[in-house]
């Protein structure tokens, strides 16, 4: 319609499938996220370690290339489960954690503060669809810096090491993807829940940081005071490490058996979902 033709007019065109409406949310959220130069810089930096790891794997099978630059007799550490666990640890816990702190708190709190939820929920978008859309915004970005490069490195290693290595290490590929997804789901839900509770981005960021850092400190205090290890349940990275140790088949001492740690992660996720179910409503009814 021409700009001078100001009339109310019907829409007769096609509609998108209802099941895909939630995808609108992450698409528009990413547009906003990538407007920040700080975030773009950080996001670029997140690929430094995967590139370094790829070079490492390449050199591991091409020591002659090192000899060409005068580095004879160099012995590179093996590319095995501890190598991938260390790589994923940096990507998930450090970089994924920072990314969660940068994006997660701003996902829901501005919508609650500005009364945007009735606008979404009066449309063909359910609360589940809204949560899924917001969660996917963060989960997809963390995936891009965690299990996707991890899987590419695993496939690079398999390509260089040969079929036998791949056949005997399929479980490692599963550990890379599965371990990262468990972390991503837990941290994304936790970020959404804190964002829904705080209503302000800065407060939500502080809250989330507090849950991750001070949870560990409080857990340690509980351990010291009561001479127990239960306090570690408040320490999200420690709990996650217990699950990872089992997935990566690492022989390292852990605070809990993997099933207990996994149950704790389920508990955190369940609590986050309960908070979201309570907070994500078009209107809060005061009874």
């Amino acid at each position, binding site marked *: 319609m021409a700009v001078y033709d100001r009339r109310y*007019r019907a829409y007769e065109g096609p509609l998108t499938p209802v099941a895909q409406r939630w995808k609108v949310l992450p698409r528009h959220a990413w547009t906003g996220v990538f407007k920040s130069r700080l975030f773009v810089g950080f996001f670029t930096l997140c690929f430094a370690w995967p590139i370094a790891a790829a070079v490492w794997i390449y050199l591991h099978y091409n020591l002659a290339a090192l000899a060409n630059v005068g580095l004879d007799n160099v012995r590179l550490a093996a590319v095995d489960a501890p190598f991938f666990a260390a790589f994923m640890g940096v990507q998930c816990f450090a970089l994924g954690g920072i990314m969660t702190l940068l994006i997660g708190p701003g996902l829901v709190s501005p919508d609650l503060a500005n009364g945007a939820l009735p606008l979404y*929920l009066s*449309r063909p978008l359910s609360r589940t669809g809204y949560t899924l859309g917001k969660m996917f915004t963060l989960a997809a970005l963390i995936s891009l810096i965690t299990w996707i490069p991890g899987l590419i490195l695993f496939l690079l290693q398999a390509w260089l090491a040969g079929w036998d290595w791949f056949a005997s290490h399929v479980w490692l590929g599963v550990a890379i993807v599965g371990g990262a997804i468990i972390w991503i789901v837990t941290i994304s839900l936790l970020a959404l829940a804190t964002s829904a509770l705080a209503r302000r981005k800065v407060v939500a960021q502080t809250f989330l940081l507090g849950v991750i850092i001070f949870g560990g400190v409080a857990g340690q205090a509980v351990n010291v005071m009561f001479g127990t290890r239960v306090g570690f349940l408040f320490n999200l990275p420690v709990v996650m490490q217990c699950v990872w140790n089992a997935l990566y088949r690492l022989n390292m001492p852990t605070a809990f058996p993997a099933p207990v740690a996994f149950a704790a992660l389920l508990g955190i996720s369940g609590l986050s979902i309960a908070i979201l179910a309570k907070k994500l409503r078009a209107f809060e009814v005061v009874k």
Partner: protein
Amino acid sequence: MNEPGVIELEGLGVRFGGRPILQGLTASLKGRAIGLLGPNGAGKTTLLNTLLGFHKPAEGRALLHGDDVVSGDPSLRSKIGYMPESDAFIAGMTAVRFVRMMGEVSGLPPEAALERAHETLQYVGLGEARYRTLEGFSLGMKQLAKLAQAIVHAPRILFLDEPTNGLDPPARARMIRLIREIRDSGRAQIVLSSHLLRDVEECCDEVLVLKDGKIAFYGNLEEERRANKKFIHIEMKGDEHAFAAAAEGLGCTCALVGPGRVKLVMPETVAVRDLYRIAAENAYQIRKLDYKRDSLQDIFLKAMEEPRGRL
């Protein structure tokens, strides 16, 4: 057989924490623009939110175009446009991106949503400001942006909650003009909730008055006005008793409301000139004659006075 209404309320009741907020609402709303009126706390916003599917009825049901509002049917939601009363926007977005996104969530493909976002913002008068972020908008501009997001997908039912709240007179006039244009286009039926009688009077052809969560009045405004057209108030000099008796002889219903003051309802067969003829024949002087039309204010006040409502 009666034609089904746009909105059918069938014994609708809503409770919050056991406390009844809406009770036994039954009505078939058919108008092009339906006004929801009532004092604060009467249940207007609760009714609107229930129709939008935000609250579950404790009893009865509400149908929009024949579909139960609690069904959550996406095709029903696609037909709905909603402009909330309070501030409602997405932080950090320009007006055009905001309206486009709302269009996409309603089901428009991205290209169509962008095109319609531009059109709609032009239509509501925010064309020049469409690349500005919503946080920087004045209250009036935010109201217009809210209207734009409500109509971007061309809904068949448009819910407007206090659309003129906080607007200065020119901005209010513009909002009223837009609502009337949408109504007159015949492409959307409007449900307008307001505590301002003037807004409802200017925009709506039907009105539903709520009082304490119950329907105090529901009717067609134009029919109400027509029904009261023959309601006449006379101030006269002379024997008002004899005048009233003569008027009753013609078939009028009369009431003496004071010395020299008569109220009467004329049947269709009687004209005003018949009253002047009676006065002339008996040498009475008619000093003042008013057609009494029920204004919305009269209807509203009457509904508030009546303990059990009139429906």
